[in-house]
C-alpha cells in the first residue's frame, strides 16, 4: 500500500492503482480540484504540486532536512509518492490567511483567468524553499515549465521577486520536525508492494524482479513513459518503479571517470556534470522544465531511445560507457553502440541500465554542446550538437561529433570527424568538415524543422564551435539567459 504524508498525517492509498497519476488521484479520489489539468503531458505546469522528501546528505551532499521539488502531477505515478510528503495548492492557505507566495501573486495581479495560477503558486513555493534570494534568471528557470496564456508573465515574475522580501518561515517550517519524523518512519517501514507495482529498495532487488519478470515495465521519472498512459491511454500491468533506489541515484568520481546512477534525476546531477563539463549547464537548463528535471533521469533519457533526446549526443561525444545489468550479470558498452535502429537498443529483456560512466576531460580536451529549438525554454531539439575536441598545438588530434535530431538515432558524424582529424583547427577546415555533414546525415523534415534547416543550421553549429573556441572578443552566441 502506498503511504505518503499529506497535511501532517500519513495518508494511506486505498483502493487505487499506484500506477494512476497523482493528478487523477487528487482530482478524482480526493476531490482536491485546486490542481489543474492543462495538458496531461508535462508541458504546461498547471498540475504542479510539490513533493518534499528527506535529504540524503550521504548521497546527494544536501543539508539534512527536507528538500522541496516541484513536479508535474499529471505524469507522475501515485506510487512514487511512497515515503514522501505531498503538498498541493490547498495546503498553502491557512484559514483565511494566504501563504506569502499566494499573497504576492494577488498583490502583483499575477492571475487573470487563474487556471495556471495554482501551478505557478506551487512552483514559486518550491523555489522560495530552495533559493536564497530573488534572481530573475533563477526565477525563469524555476517557472519555465509553467505556461500562462493570459498575463505575459511580467506580474508573475514580479510576484516571484517580491516573495523573497518576506520571511522564509511558514507553516511548513514550523511542522518540519514532525514531518521529518513521519517521513523517517515511512522510510523504515518496508513498503508493502501492491501487485502490479514494485518499488525495489536496492539494485539487487531490482535485478531479481526484472529477471523474474522480464516483461515488466521500468519506470524511473516517468516523464517519457507516462505520456503513453495519458496520451495513448495505455495501461501497464506491471510497473517497476526505480525512482527510489538510492544506489541508482548516486554520483561519484572514480579516478578520471564520472560515474552516475541511471536513475539520478537531472536536478541532482547538474552540479557534478557542470563542474566537469561546463557546456552541459545550458543544455541541462534547456532540457524540459524544472518539473521535468526534478523527475526525469539520465537513464530514462538514454533508454527511451528517442532520436531527439538531449543527453545522448553529449554522452556519445564524451565517449561515455554504460553498465548494463541483467540478473547478476553486467556488461559495459559504449553509448554509441547502444542504439541499433529507430527507437531500438541492445537492451535485452530483463536488462537495465545501471550506471553511466563518463571519462573526464584533460586540459587539451573540450566539449561544446548546442541545442536548437523553436522556443528557448522547455522545447524539444530540432537539432542538438555535441562536439568533443582534443587540440594539440592547434591541430585536431581527436574529435567526436555527435548529433541528435539528424538521424533515426543519436549518432556520430564520421565524415565530418575524419575531415577534421589531423588538420589545423581553423575556419577553412571547419567549413570543409561542416560541408561533410551532408554525407553524414540526411535528416527528415517534420513540424519541428525542415531537413534543410536541420542540416544547414547544424553546419553552422560547427562553425559556431570554432568561433567560440577561437574568438574571445565579440559575442557570437546568445544564451538561455540573454
Amino acid at each position: 500500500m502506498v503511504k505518503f504524508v499529506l497535511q501532517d498525517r500519513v495518508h494511506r492509498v486505498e483502493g487505487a492503482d499506484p500506477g494512476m497519476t497523482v493528478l487523477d488521484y487528487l482530482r478524482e479520489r480526493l476531490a482536491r480540484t485546486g490542481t489543474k489539468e492543462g495538458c496531461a503531458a508535462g508541458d504546461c505546469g498547471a498540475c504542479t504540486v510539490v513533493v518534499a522528501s528527506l535529504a540524503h546528505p550521504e548521497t546527494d551532499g544536501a543539508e539534512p532536512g527536507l528538500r522541496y521539488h516541484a513536479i508535474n502531477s499529471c505524469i507522475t505515478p501515485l506510487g512514487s509518492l511512497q515515503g514522501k510528503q505531498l503538498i498541493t495548492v490547498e495546503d498553502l492557505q491557512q484559514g483565511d490567511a494566504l501563504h506569502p507566495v499566494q499573497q504576492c501573486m494577488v498583490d502583483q495581479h499575477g492571475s487573470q483567468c487563474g487556471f495556471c495560477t495554482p501551478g505557478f503558486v506551487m512552483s514559486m513555493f518550491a523555489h522560495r524553499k530552495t533559493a536564497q534570494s530573488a534572481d530573475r534568471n533563477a526565477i525563469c528557470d524555476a517557472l519555465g515549465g509553467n505556461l500562462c496564456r493570459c498575463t505575459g508573465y511580467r506580474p508573475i515574475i514580479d510576484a516571484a521577486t517580491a516573495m523573497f522580501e518576506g520571511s522564509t518561515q511558514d507553516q511548513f517550517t514550523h511542522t518540519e520536525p514532525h514531518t521529518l519524523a513521519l517521513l523517517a518512519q515511512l522510510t523504515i517501514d518496508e513498503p508493502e508492494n501492491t501487485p502490479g507495482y514494485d518499488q525495489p529498495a536496492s539494485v539487487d532487488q531490482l535485478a531479481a524482479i526484472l529477471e523474474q519478470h522480464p516483461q515488466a515495465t521500468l519506470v524511473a521519472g516517468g516523464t517519457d513513459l507516462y505520456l503513453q498512459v495519458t496520451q495513448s491511454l495505455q495501461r501497464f500491468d506491471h510497473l517497476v518503479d526505480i525512482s527510489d533506489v538510492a544506489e541508482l541515484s548516486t554520483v561519484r568520481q572514480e579516478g578520471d571517470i564520472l560515474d552516475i546512477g541511471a536513475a539520478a534525476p537531472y536536478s541532482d546531477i547538474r552540479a557534478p556534470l557542470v563542474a566537469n563539463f561546463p557546456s552541459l549547464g545550458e543544455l541541462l537548463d534547456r532540457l524540459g522544465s524544472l518539473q521535468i528535471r526534478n523527475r526525469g533521469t539520465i537513464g530514462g533519457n538514454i533508454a527511451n531511445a528517442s532520436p531527439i533526446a538531449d543527453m545522448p549526443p553529449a554522452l556519445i561525444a564524451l565517449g561515455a560507457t554504460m553498465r548494463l545489468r541483467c540478473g547478476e550479470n553486467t556488461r559495459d558498452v559504449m553509448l554509441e553502440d547502444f542504439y541499433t535502429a529507430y527507437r531500438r537498443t541492445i537492451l535485452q529483456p530483463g536488462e537495465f541500465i545501471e550506471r553511466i560512466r563518463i571519462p573526464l576531460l584533460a586540459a587539451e580536451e573540450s566539449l561544446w554542446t548546442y541545442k536548437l529549438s523553436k522556443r528557448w525554454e522547455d522545447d524539444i531539439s530540432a537539432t542538438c550538437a555535441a562536439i568533443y575536441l582534443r587540440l594539440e598545438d592547434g591541430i585536431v588530434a581527436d574529435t567526436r561529433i555527435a548529433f541528435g535530431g539528424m538521424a533515426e538515432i543519436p549518432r556520430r558524424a564520421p565524415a565530418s570527424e575524419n575531415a577534421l582529424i589531423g588538420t589545423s583547427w581553423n575556419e577553412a577546415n571547419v567549413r570543409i568538415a561542416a560541408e561533410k555533414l551532408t554525407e553524414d546525415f540526411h535528416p527528415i523534415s517534420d513540424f519541428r524543422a525542415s531537413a534543410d534547416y536541420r542540416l544547414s543550421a547544424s553546419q553552422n553549429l560547427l562553425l559556431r564551435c570554432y568561433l567560440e573556441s577561437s574568438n574571445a572578443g565579440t559575442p557570437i552566441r546568445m544564451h538561455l539567459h540573454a
Partner: protein
Amino acid sequence: MRNLPAQNANTPGQATSKVGAELQHEAATLHVSGAARYIDDIPVPASCLHGAVGMSTIASGRIKRLDLSRVRQSPGVQAVLTLQDIPGHRDIGPVFPGDPLLLDEGGVVQFHGQALFAVAADTVTEARQAARLAEVEYENTESNLDIRHGLQEEQLVRPSHTQSRGNAKAAIEASPRRLHGEFSSGGQEHMYLEGQVSLCIPTEDNGMMVYSSTQHPSEGQKLVAEVLGIPLHRVTVEVRRMGGGFGGKETHANQWACLAALLAWKAGCAIKLRLGRVDDFVGTGKRHPFHTEFTVGFDDSGLIQGVEMDLAGGCGYSPDLSDAIVDRAMFHADNAYYLPAARITGHRVKTNAVSNTAFRGFGGPQGMLATEAMIERIARAVGEDSLTVRQRNFYSAEDGRDSTHYGQKIEQHIIPSLVERLVGTSDYWGRRAEIQEYNRQSPVLKRGLALTPAKFGISFTVQHLNQAGALIHIYTDGSIQLNHGGTEMGQGLYTKVAQVVAHAFQVDIERIACTATRTDKVPNTSPTAASSGSDLNGMAALDAAEIIKKRLVDFAGNHFGAEPGDVCFIDNQVHVGQERYSFAEFIQLAYMNRISLSATGYYRTPEIHYNRDTASGRPFFYFANGAAVAEVLIDTLTGEYRMIRADICQDVGESLNPAIDIGQIEGGFIQGAGWLTTEELVWGEDGRLQTNSAASYKIPAIGDTPGDFRVELLPDSPNREATIFHSKAVGEPPLMLGIAVWSALGDAVASLSDYRESAQLNAPATPEQVFMACRSMRERN
C-alpha cells in the same frame, strides 16, 4: 421576510473601490488558493458519466462504413450517440449552416478530426479509449489545405467582398513608384489553459442544465435547445469563469455542450465532456491563416497613393464566423494609414481544416500585419527608416486625410502624438543609431528595432450584437448581487463591472458579489467578444444601478419630503439632507416601504451603422489606439532570437482599472508576439495537425518576456464618445502590438543588406524562418 438582518455589515467610511482604482481581480484570492471553480471542478451527481468524441482520421472523403460495435462493447461504455439519434437540429453553424454535429455512414468528412460520434462511459479514460475503437471505412477524396490553391479553384465558404474608394488601379499607375508583394501569416491556436469542457444535467421537465466553458452562453442555450428539439426556456447555460477563451470559446464551445447535452438526454444522467488537449487542438478552430497580395503605388517619400490588396483567409471547412472575420481584416487593412485610393478585397477560402474561428482581434491583426509588411517594403524601397514612412502615412486632420477606405471619419487623431510620445520615451532614434553601430561591429549577432502602431475599431460589425443586459439585486443587509451577460475569462470583466456598480452606489466593492453568467438571469446576450465586454455590460449594469437609485431617490422624496438634489450616495451611506443613513439602513427602510430593490439594465451602442452593399458607414463607435517598440537580437548562424526590450503606449481612454488594463496589454502583446514567432501550426500531407499539443506547439514561456518591458497607459485621453466612464476597450487591441516584434526581426535581418532590402520573412518568424531569411539576404548581398 419577517425579521430583517442585523446591520453589522455596515462600515461607513470612504468607499475606495471605485472606478479607476487598481483593484485586484475579483477572484484573485480564489485563483491563488485553488478554490476558484472551473467546470471540471464542479462536484458532479453520483451517476455522472463521462463523454468522449470519436473523430475522423482522414481530411476529406465519404464514410463508407461506420461500425461502432467495438465502441459499444468497450468496458464501461453506457451510451453511444450517432447522428441518427439527434432529435432536433443536426447542424450547429452559428451564422450559416455547414457545421454538422456528427457524421454518419454516407456523410462527407471535411477535415481530419471531424466528430463522427460520441460515447459516454463510467470514467474519462474508458470513454476516450472507446472513442478510438470505431471501425471506419472511408472513400478518400483529394483534400486541400493551401489557401492559394483554394482561391485559384474558387473554393470559398462565403462570397468574396470588396471595399473600395476611388480608382486604386489608376492611382497606383500614376504613382512614381510601385511595388507588388505577397505575404502570408500562419494561424494560431488559442491554447487557453482550460480546455473545452461542458457538464450537462437533465432537469425534471426534460430540459437541460448546462455548465459550459463558453464565451457565448446564449448561443449555447439556443443550440442545445435546437439539437434537443425543445424550447429555449427549458435550457439554462451557466458559466462562472473560463480558464481563458481568447475567441476560442465563442462558437467552438457549442459543439461539446450540444454533444454532452445529447448524451445526457440519451443516457438519462449527467454527462461531463472534457476534451483532452490533443482533441482540443484537432477539433476546434483557430486563428485564420492569411495569404495576401498587394500592389501599392507611392511617391519617393514613401507616401502611399493607392493600394490594391487581396486578403485571403483560410477558413477551414465551414463558414463559422469567417464572413465577419475576413471583413474585419479588410476594415484593418489601413491600420493607422490613410489610403487615398484603395481596393481591398477579402476572400473566404475553404480548406480541409477545422473551421477557423474568432481569435483576439478577429481578423484585424491579419489585415494590419499584411499592411505593416507592405509598409516595411515601401520603407526599404525609398531608403527611409520604416518609422518615418509610417509617420508620413498616418491619418491626419490636414488635407482631408482623415477618412477610412470604408468611409468612417477618424474624429480624433491620437496615433501621431501617441507615437511621438513613444518615440521619445523609448529613445527610438538614439537606440536606432546605437544598433546600427552594434550591427557593424558584430558579425554573427544582429539587433533589430521597430515601432508599429495599431488602430483598432471597437464594436461588433454585426450590428445587432451591440446590446447587453444586466441584473442587480440589493438585499436587505445592503449587499448587492450583480449579474450581466458578459462572461469572465480572465480579462477582469466582472471586476470592472463591479467597480462601475460600486461607483454608482458609492459603496465598497466588497459589498458586491459577482455571480455566474446565466441565461436565466440575463437572457438573449451577445458573446463576450470584440473587446466589448465592459463597454456593453458596464453600461447595462450602470443602467440597472441608476434605475434602482432613482427609485431610492424617489422614495426618499416621498418618505422624507426631500428634494431629489438632497439625496446623495456617499461613502457607503445615503445622505438625505442632513440625515445620514448607512447604506444597509437605508435599503431596509426602502424595503419596509415596499420599494423594489431589483432591476434589469439594458444598453445598445448608439450611432453605429454600416451598409455592406456599399461597403461604407460607421461600423465602429470609436477606435482604440496604441503603439509598441520592440528590440530583438538574432543569431544569423542559426536564426535563434531573443526579444530584449519592449516599450508600449496604449490608449485605454479613462481606465476603469489600470492594473487590469496593463495586464491585458502585456498579455495581449506577448500573445501577439507568440503568434508571429514560435507558434507554428503544421499539417501533414494527410491533413492531420502535427503540432497538436503544447509539446509541439510552442506558446511563449516565461523567458520569452523581455527583461525590459515598459507599458504606459496614454495619460489624459478620455474617450470622447460616451462610453462607460469614458474608458476604452482593451481586450484585443494590444495583441496587434506584437507586430512590432515581427518587424524588429525583419529589421535585424535587413541589417545584412545594410538596410537596403527588406527581409523575406513571413509569419510566424520561427528561428528557421529567420535563418532562411538571413541566408537568402546574404546570398543576395
